């Protein structure tokens, strides 16, 4: 019985010390990596802001000219608002400033008889999706 009591005290002390030590260690590690991650992310954001701010008027003019060129390059049947929406969607998907839309072309219309229905297209997408 005395041995068991001695074991109990050992387990009480060991248990409390180890559980607290491990969890306090985790607190320190989480704090450290949270600081590292947030500082890294804020520096990236800072760089982005600086990059945007450094854009000269000349670059803006060139950009506008390119946009105008893009609008001119298609057959003129696509309104400017739709081109702007497409460009915005591309930016959302690939990230701001990652790509630039240089031209928008209307896809060739597919003959109705050959076009897949939405259900068929969904079925093909489901069955050919990579595992």
């Amino acid at each position: 019985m005395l041995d068991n009591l001695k074991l109990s005290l050992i387990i009480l002390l060991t248990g409390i010390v180890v559980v607290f030590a491990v969890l306090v260690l985790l607190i320190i590690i989480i704090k450290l990596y949270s600081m590292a991650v947030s500082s890294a992310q804020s520096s990236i954001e800072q760089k982005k802001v600086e990059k945007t701010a450094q854009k000269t008027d000349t670059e803006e003019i060139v950009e506008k000219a390119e946009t105008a060129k893009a609008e001119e390059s298609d057959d003129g049947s696509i309104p400017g608002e739709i081109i702007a929406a497409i460009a915005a969607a591309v930016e959302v998907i690939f990230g701001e400033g990652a790509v630039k839309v240089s031209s928008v072309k209307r896809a060739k219309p597919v003959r109705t008889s050959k076009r897949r229905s939405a259900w068929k297209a969904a079925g093909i997408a489901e069955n050919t999706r990579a595992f």
Partner: protein
Amino acid sequence: MEFLTQFLESIAGIFQSSGFASLPWQNYIMILVSFVLIYLAVKKQYEPLVLLPIAVGMLLVNLYPAIAMGGQTQYIPVEQYQAMHPGETVKYAQALVDGVMCYAVPEKVGGLLYYLYLGVKHGIYPPLIFLGIGAMTDFGPLISNPKSFILGAAAQIGIFITFIGAILLGFAPNEAGAIGIIGGADGPTAIYVTSILASDLLGPIAVAAYSYMALVPIIQPPIMKLLTTKEERSIKMVQLRQVSKLEKILFPIIVTVVVSLLLPDAATLIGMLMFGNLMRESGVVERISKTAQNELMNIITIFLGLSVGSTATGKVFLSPKTIGIIALGLFAFMMGTASGVIFGKIMCKATGGKVNPLIGSAGVSAVPMAARVSQKVGQEENPSNFLLMHAMGPNVAGVVGSAVAAGVLISILK
């Protein structure tokens, strides 16, 4: 006349082999206990996902004990078998018995619950449950306020204090360890530790652990109110910061590496918990993450519940030991809650009243029930107070803490 005698003999034979003639009285009491558990699960909805399979497992094993019995194998010396079956293609496994090579010929197949129980016996189900829990858990509140780990650790003190209580009541050290872990209020961890340290006590300990988890809303509030003042319960906590995706992805990896290196015996539980969480947070394996959260979790819950229930046979369950386990389990649970709240008070003082001590009680695992209790008790004092997300930090820290405590107990007592 002879026909009548044969008829009566047949009827008598059927009666003799029926449960009415062969079951001991303890089994009938356990059948009644299983009815009470079914009632609590169905009518009161106390942890029904776990309690119902446990109750049905308990019912089945006490009605038909063979459902949890293993198969029988006869060992026949190879030469003897070949002499008895000349020219037969032998398909049995061979084993050396008393220096003689024998065929292991299965005579009788075991019961269904015997085979399901192997997942408990070999410690397979609890880590898989942890996988599902990890896939369902958002560790964001814990990452945004890592100090919650202190409360998760504090609530584990009940485990070790109960260990002493169990020793004083005459339990062996390994049994005391398994009983103490009930204080972690974490069913899978309790089952995992018990299956390693004292598998004979699996039935009473699992039933006690899940019963007390179901009774969290009844057990915890009086202790929380007793240990805190009205002012402390009314404290509003500042909103938690947003946690980035990268932090959430790094968290399970770091915790797995740190805990597994420091405490290898906790690696299975923590590894599975964090693997499930990594699947969730990475967002690249949505399909298997959903499987872990739903289908796998549900299947394992059924298997675990039935097999745990099947260990609660009348002979094992109706003993003074079980009463001691039930009482000590409640004590462990209360001590865990109390130590969590006391550490909450200490943190409240240390931060100049920025921490509501009620979130300390959520340090016992029982996710998310214990956090909901903190929210409810806090809102009783101040209806505009929302403690739920703050309490989720200690709550999920409690899961990690109880796994670490389990690792300590296993490493010392195994």
